[in-house]
């Protein structure tokens, strides 16, 4: 069992402030740096990275800090996306309706499934979350009025209070950026709060926490619901970005991809999840350009990362910094 350093919320090393600051500054600067010709492509790509990063950051809270290895996170993303798609199909294209519905739907699903999943531990938890994700996939695929297996096109990006603020690639980019920043800051605050301390303690030693007087299950459920709602936000933005919703958004493979992003970046750091999302999407973009069979390269790469680079990108960077010092 690899011992991980203390969760970032319990540390206060300068790296934990500088690294995320750099990341967010870099993200904010992307539109300014991207060349005119490729700008839309770059903006779309990085928007997509940030959208997955939102879901991945929430997942890192569960996995990296709570020790809750959820393989069902894609279900929340998918629910948020379908909220947009279904409402749009019925003529409700404004974010003021779609976003609360997306958040509520994912939060409720998280509450219902979390109440069952969190009673299990270890591998059972992994499998039951994975199964719920797949359940949502099949449910969405059987919704014939909403495209079923083929998915559903979203008529247009959501308006915000009537204003078409998301139609333009640049303004959409900054809206997504703001959401990611808000998500990051929210999760940071959450983890450092009283609630966060209990939640992290529940991972460290649940029996000890119970013996002090904490009903760890309740704290885990609340965290699960919050993470689910954030997943719904990610889905809301995803549906708007791609203007299409598909049952595949909820599949267990997508859930696995989110876990990979968290692991790739470095669990238990929050900003690692952002880096992991970037690494994953960029690797996919680059490798798929090389060959249609890029998964034959990506698969073994994953195995190698697990075997040799357990701390993810953050871990690698930390080792580099240490060896230079």
């Amino acid at each position, binding site marked *: 069992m690899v011992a991980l350093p203390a969760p970032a919320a319990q540390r206060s090393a300068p790296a934990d402030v500088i690294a995320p600051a750099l990341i967010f500054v870099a993200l904010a600067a992307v539109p300014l740096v991207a060349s005119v010709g490729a700008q839309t492509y770059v903006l779309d790509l990085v928007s997509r990275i940030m959208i997955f990063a939102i879901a991945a950051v929430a997942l890192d809270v569960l996995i990296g800090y709570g020790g809750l290895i959820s393989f069902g996170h894609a279900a929340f993303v998918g629910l948020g996306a379908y909220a947009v798609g279904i409402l749009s199909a019925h003529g409700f294209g404004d974010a003021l309706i779609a976003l609360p519905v997306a958040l509520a739907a994912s939060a409720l699903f998280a509450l219902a499934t979390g109440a069952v999943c969190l009673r299990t531990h270890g591998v059972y938890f992994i499998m039951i979350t994975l199964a719920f994700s797949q359940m949502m996939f099949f449910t969405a695929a059987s919704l014939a009025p909403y495209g079923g297996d083929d998915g559903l096109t979203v008529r247009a990006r959501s308006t915000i209070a009537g204003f078409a603020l998301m139609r333009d690639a640049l303004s959409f980019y900054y809206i997504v950026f703001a959401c990611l920043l808000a998500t990051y800051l929210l999760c940071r605050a959450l983890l450092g*709060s009283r609630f966060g301390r209990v939640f992290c303690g529940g991972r460290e*030693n649940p029996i000890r926490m*119970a013996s002090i007087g904490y009903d760890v299950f309740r704290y885990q459920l609340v965290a699960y619901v919050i993470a689910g709602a954030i997943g719904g936000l990610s889905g809301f933005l995803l549906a708007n970005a791609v203007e299409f919703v598909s049952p595949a958004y909820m599949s267990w493979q997508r859930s696995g991809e989110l876990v990979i992003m968290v692991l790739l970046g470095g669990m238990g750091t929050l900003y690692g999840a952002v880096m992991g999302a970037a690494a994953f999407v960029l690797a996919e973009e680059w490798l798929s350009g090389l060959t249609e069979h890029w998964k034959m390269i990506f698969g073994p790469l994953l195995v190698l990362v697990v075997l040799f680079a357990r701390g993810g990108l953050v871990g690698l960077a930390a080792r580099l910094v240490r060896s230079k010092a």
Partner: protein
Amino acid sequence: MSEPVLRIEALCKHFGGLLVTDSVTLAINPGELHAVIGPNGAGKTTLINQISGLIRPDAGRIELGGRDVTALPTHARAALGVARSFQITSVLPRFSALQNVALAVQARSGSSFRFFGRADHERALNEEAEAVLAEVGLGARAHVPALALSHGEKRVLELAIALAMRPKLLLLDEPMAGIGRDETERLIAVLRALKGRFPVLLVEHDMTAVFALADRISVLIYGRILASGAPDVVRADPAVIAAYLGDEME
């Protein structure tokens, strides 16, 4: 004579075919330090686990301050004031000593469903936690991660966490386990200073500590209480000497 803080009646527990707790009846009075001694495998830790709620008894009753808690989960009993230390050190390894204790203080200081405001900076919690750590002699080690503490320091931290709960009943499961002579002396001194503040159920093998601290002693052999009473009485009881104390007194 006031109401016992803890009353156990006819507690029974089987593990498969093995009877680990055999109709145990026990009462602990306010301010009393009650030691439970017995050979390994006698069921002492199982008894503590049943009192703290980690294990459900098969039969019998557990009453805390007159209230039936037999079906109550561990965290609810802790909220009622049952604090315990574990035989095998059970702390939050990657949290500092201060954080470990502060969490115990936090549990009785209002709601922990607060999502904003850095808990580590809450002065009230930290001050109380620091005071408890000073009381047990860990003041200088407050900011050390628990896993970096020595074994003896961890045992003391266990005690500190329990004390920080301002318990109505303190369950100590072999607090002296595995620590050296000097640290044992220090721990005995700490426990002696605590005596009278709240009732303590002390499970221990170290007879020096037991006879230095206990107001009453119960002897547990194969899950049954063989004898219970004042230390001198128990010490002289021939059945107890035969079954357990015999050579221990040398």
